[in-house]
């Protein structure tokens, strides 16, 4: 029976470690780094065992306090939640290994302990958001995630990080209030907070009070749209992700935004149900916003010269792909969107980590000044190229597989014009990513050679970047490893109620 407690073990281990970090009195050193990595390693092993157990048996639910489902808080552990937890922990381990050497030059050493406390609390709340089956519990974990993700931007005290974090905090607060309004409206008519119980009652309620459900869906879509940066509401994302320290940028762009997308997918399909969502017409609006995101995100990225801002706008466009897959309301579309969540997490982390390595060694952030840097930093530029090829969609990388699945889903749902939009967006992606690689590898440096800030790239940074890139290539060459798990998990979401 003890293996059933794994969600609680992972969460409580991370929380207990995060809370005891401020008690360390000695200055930040080697022993603390080893302790931190061992705690993360134990959590990773437990997440892997959990995934294997769910694949072997069936999905199960875990209620806190031995109460029955309507009274207590419930965690529903199915295949996709376990897989997503494993991906979150894998990327966090690699990014924290990278951050051990990179952060010494970005923030003051008296704040290193606080930084790692915030990162652990962030991972704790993301895993909680992935597992939970209760609406108000989702709200609580979402608030912890919102506050800690602003704090790891504001911990670097320069002028532009302060204004960027203020903007992110304000828009995040407005979004949280809007989401709470949506939860209140749904609670008003159904009288339950558990997601499966709301789903059982929703068809009866839809006949009696259609306007309530419509208002609730509108409020929640606006709130989660602000947090997940869909097109008209994405203004906070370029400032926040580009002025943050590099490990924070990688964590935010790769993992935090995806947690919110997962939450809105759960609400649209597990709570409200598929037929009501299509009946209201919400899915048509999401398709329009997703298409605008995909195209306008790439158009804005063409005009940016700072390399991190270019990567941040590219994130906006990729989130558009995921929302397009969600809005198609079919099994193929849903599994394509979830596959792109995982593959984009790996690719964007690889891109941000290698861009951070370039800034660490040379101090250059301008894209036009990166000529000939491929010869002086070959490993870094190779990792960057792997990420870029994945973003464009060259066969053999995970980005190609996700575009392939998304294209099949779009054709299956009967919208062939959206396939043209996907192709145009891939072309625009190539237009702003390829010149960086070409000028880095194939162009000579005019004038005097490059002056390096520091001599060598530390080995921990190189190792973690290479492992992230290898992960991306692995998913690209063997996509059925991930896709089988996703396709087993999709019936739990759409339509069929497991009755757990």
């Amino acid at each position, binding site marked *: 029976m003890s293996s059933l407690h794994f969600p609680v073990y992972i969460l409580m281990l991370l929380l*207990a470690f995060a809370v005891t970090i*401020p*008690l360390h009195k000695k200055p930040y050193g080697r022993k603390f780094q080893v302790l931190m990595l061992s705690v993360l390693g134990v959590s990773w092993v437990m997440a892997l065992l959990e995934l294997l157990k769910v694949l072997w048996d069936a999905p199960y639910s875990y209620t*806190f306090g*031995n109460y029955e489902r309507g009274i207590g808080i419930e965690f529903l552990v199915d295949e996709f939640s376990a897989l997503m937890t494993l991906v979150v922990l894998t990327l966090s381990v690699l990014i924290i290994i990278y951050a051990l050497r990179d952060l010494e030059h970005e923030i003051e050493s008296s704040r290193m302990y606080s930084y790692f406390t915030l990162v652990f609390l962030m991972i704790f709340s993301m895993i909680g958001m992935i597992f939970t089956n209760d609406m108000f519990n989702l709200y609580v974990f979402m608030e912890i995630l919102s506050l800690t993700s602003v704090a790891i931007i504001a911990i670097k005290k320069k002028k532009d990080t302060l204004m960027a974090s203020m903007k992110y905090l304000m828009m995040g607060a407005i979004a949280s209030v809007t989401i709470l309004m949506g939860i209140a409206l749904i609670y008003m008519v159904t009288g339950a907070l558990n997601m499966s119980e709301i789903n059982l009652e929703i068809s009866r309620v839809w006949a009696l009070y259609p306007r309530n459900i419509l208002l609730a869906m509108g409020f929640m879509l606006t709130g989660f749209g602000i947090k997940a940066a869909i097109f008209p509401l994405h203004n906070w994302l370029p400032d926040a992700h580009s002025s943050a320290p590099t490990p924070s940028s990688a964590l935010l762009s790769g993992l935090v935004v995806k947690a919110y997308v997962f939450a809105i997918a759960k609400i649209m399909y597990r709570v409200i149900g598929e037929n009501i969502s299509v009946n209201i017409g919400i899915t048509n609006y999401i398709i329009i916003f997703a298409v605008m995101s995909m195209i306008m995100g790439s158009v804005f990225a063409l005009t940016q010269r700072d390399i991190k801002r270019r990567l941040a706008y590219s994130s906006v466009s990729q989130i558009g792909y995921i929302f397009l897959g969600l809005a198609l309301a079919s099994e193929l579309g849903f599994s394509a969107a979830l596959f792109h969540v995982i593959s984009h997490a790996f690719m964007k982390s690889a891109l941000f980590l290698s861009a951070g390595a370039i800034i660490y060694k040379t101090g250059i952030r301008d894209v036009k000044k990166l000529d000939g840097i491929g010869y002086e930093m070959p490993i870094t530029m190779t990792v960057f190229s792997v990420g870029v090829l994945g973003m464009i969609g060259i066969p053999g990388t995970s980005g190609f597989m996700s575009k392939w699945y998304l294209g099949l889903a779009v054709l299956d749902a009967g919208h062939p014009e959206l396939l043209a939009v996907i192709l145009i967006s891939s072309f625009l992606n190539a237009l702003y990513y390829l010149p960086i690689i070409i000028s880095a590898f194939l162009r000579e440096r005019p004038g005097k050679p490059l002056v390096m800030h520091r001599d060598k790239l530390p080995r921990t940074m190189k190792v973690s970047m290479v492992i992230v890139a290898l992960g991306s290539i692995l998913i690209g060459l063997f996509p059925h490893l991930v896709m089988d798990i996703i396709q087993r998990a999709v019936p739990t979401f759409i339509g069929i109620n497991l009755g757990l």
Partner: protein
Amino acid sequence: MDDLFVKVTTKMILPFIQIYGIYVIIHGHLSPGGGFSGGAIFAASIVLYTLAYGLHKGQKRMPHSISSKVETGGILFYIGIGFVGILAGYPFLTNKAAGFPMGELGKVMSAGLIPMVTVAIGLKVMSTIVTLFHTMLEED
């Protein structure tokens, strides 16, 4: 502020505020209130002391080392109580089946783990609000 009236009044009224805060925390399962409200009332007394007597004396009364240890201890106590349920074979945070003494309805020592958890939350909220206040004043 160096006003004599404020200092004398604060010295007289402080114990009553603290006793009221402790009352709200302990009767959390019998009357409205509970951990957060009681902790906030208790913290208001220390904030009042700092406002009346200055930052230096306020920090001597509740130094940073004690408040950070109280914060950590609060959460670890909560997690420990939850694990008692797991050791007995039931899910996390189980109340009656894990062997907590239930007592009678309407008395203070009743309802299993709820008073213990309420005290932990009250202590943690109190130390958090005081730490926030002192940190914001220190920045100048």
